[in-house]
């Protein structure tokens, strides 16, 4: 993994008591929540930080001079500092708060697209992308009269990296301006070879956008070590609240990029005929930000650091190993994704022979097991692999071995029911 700055700690192994730190789970002792790739539950410390913000610190940020506004502004900027440190970004100016990963990717697609794309250029994505890292690029390419090309998928839901060589040989590599790829596939849990891809991008002078929505919840990321130019992640999949996400970008790019949304906060001067833009990161933060959610996001990162990043990862790896071994042993169950556990994380996508994933999920719900079913907002990937839908169980640190065993038992039950 791309290790971050806090990866060393030697405390004892995390146990199941971690589940008690999450009020929703503590209040639903029978619930096996296994839809963490969609959103995670939130620890008490996140909920209380947000509650405290609205009870004690709420005022609009940046513009007013009274004490409360100063406190609120500080809450926002301290959160930015927490994110900067967590990602090991060069400066806080490179940390832009968005409402979600989707918004961060749209910002990139619009603004970077406008800066870099000309007719005939190519935007390269992968066929395994979530729609949020696919459709914005498809539309940006359309606007610029450029072309969208997708790296194909192998049978085991890994990327066919040999395709990059094909692009070099047929000359298309020279036309690629932007490459947008996920760190981990939300549909299959595949970890993509990010550093190999970013090295290839360097070689061809391609700007790289990394969607870390599915990876940041599982291990720390040093943005400077990824080799990417941009990275997005979502607070709500990372034990934080909905409504706050992050876009990190290299200052050299952010400086050149035109603003995406315009309005208050993002301007420097406004005249009738033209305006000038505020400095970074505010140029990209038009309108009143969701300060409480940002405060919650920072509290979530702090919770992960305080709990111990390596302890979190160790516990998850153990759960994942157990889930993998149990699931592959179920008769009639087809588990998608890489066979090598080092190439996958967190997500287990599967189908039961002759039973639709919706019906599996409905059956599991009655056993108080929450999983997702459907196409997981990754229709191109599904089509590539020739599947309509899958059932998907995804893990977080508060899941237990017992919950995984219940999942497997209920899958066997579903097989018999239908």
């Amino acid at each position, binding site marked *: 993994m791309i290790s971050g700055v806090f990866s060393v700690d030697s405390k004892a192994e995390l146990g199941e008591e971690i589940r008690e730190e999450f009020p929703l789970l503590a209040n639903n002792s029978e619930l096996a929540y296994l839809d963490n790739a969609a959103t995670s539950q939130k620890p008490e410390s996140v909920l209380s930080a947000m509650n405290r913000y609205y009870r004690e610190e709420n005022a609009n940020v940046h513009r007013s001079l009274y004490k409360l506004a100063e406190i609120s502004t500080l809450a926002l900027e301290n959160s930015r500092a927490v994110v900067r440190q967590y990602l090991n970004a060069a400066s806080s100016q490179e940390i832009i708060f968005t409402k979600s990963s989707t918004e961060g990717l749209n910002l990139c697609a619009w603004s970077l697209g406008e800066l870099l794309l000309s007719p005939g250029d190519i935007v390269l994505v992968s066929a395994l992308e979530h729609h949020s890292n696919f459709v914005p690029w498809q539309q940006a390419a359309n606007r610029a009269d450029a072309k969208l090309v997708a790296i194909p998928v192998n049978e085991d839901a890994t990327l066919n990296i040999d395709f990059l060589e094909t692009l070099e040989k047929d000359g298309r590599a020279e036309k690629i301006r932007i490459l947008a790829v996920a760190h981990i596939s939300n549909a299959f849990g595949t970890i993509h070879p990010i550093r190999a891809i970013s090295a290839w991008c360097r070689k061809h002078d391609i700007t790289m956008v990394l969607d870390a929505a599915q990876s940041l919840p599982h291990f720390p990321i040093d943005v400077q070590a990824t080799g990417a130019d941009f990275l997005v992640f979502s607070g709500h999949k990372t034990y934080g609240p909905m409504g706050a996400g992050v876009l990190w970008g290299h200052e050299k790019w952010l400086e050149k990029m035109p603003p995406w949304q315009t309005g208050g906060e993002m301007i420097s001067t406004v005249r009738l005929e033209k305006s000038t833009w505020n400095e970074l990161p505010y140029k990209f933060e038009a309108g009143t930000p969701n300060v409480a959610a940002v405060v919650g996001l920072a509290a979530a990162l702090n919770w992960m650091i305080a709990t111990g990043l390596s302890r979190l990862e160790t516990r998850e790896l153990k759960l994942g190993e157990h889930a993998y071994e149990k699931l592959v042993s179920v008769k009639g169950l087809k588990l998608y994704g890489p066979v090598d556990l080092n190439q996958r994380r967190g997500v287990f996508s599967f189908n039961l022979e002759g039973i639709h994933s919706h*019906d599996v999920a409905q059956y599991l719900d009655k056993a108080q097991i929450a999983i997702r079913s459907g196409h997981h907002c990754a229709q191109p990937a599904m089509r590539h692999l020739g599947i*309509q*839908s899958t059932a998907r169980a995804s893990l977080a640190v508060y899941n237990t071995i017992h919950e995984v065993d219940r999942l497997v038992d209920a899958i066997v039950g579903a097989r018999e029911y239908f």
Partner: protein
Amino acid sequence: MNELDNLYMEIILDHYKFPRNKADLSHIADEYLHENPSCGDSLKLELVVGGDGKIGSVCFDGHGCAISTASASLMSERLIGKTPEEARRLIDVFLKVLRGEENSDSLEEWGDLMVLGGVTQFPLRVKCATLAWHAARKSLASCTE
């Protein structure tokens, strides 16, 4: 698992395992595919009105869960022999019931189809149950009044 049995009634499971009027419709172009965007289920429907002005056959093809397959199967049986106008009225009532705008008692005289009224207790599955019906309404819209 009682509540689950209310959804997966025997009739539904029977129509799921042995769908009626399911046929290979690969001759119909994919652009006529009806899709449920929330789950990726897709369905093609072929509805033929005979010389007597009545629906002579309803066939469907596609990939769906137990609810959407059973619903398409039950619907196909129900619509055969109806005029397009009668079929449109039936579809509208069904969709209203599934949206919760009309009491499911309205389906009481519909025979086996009544079991689909149970889906209203599972709001997230309503889209599954209505996919074929939306497809049929679209097909009928192109029929003359």
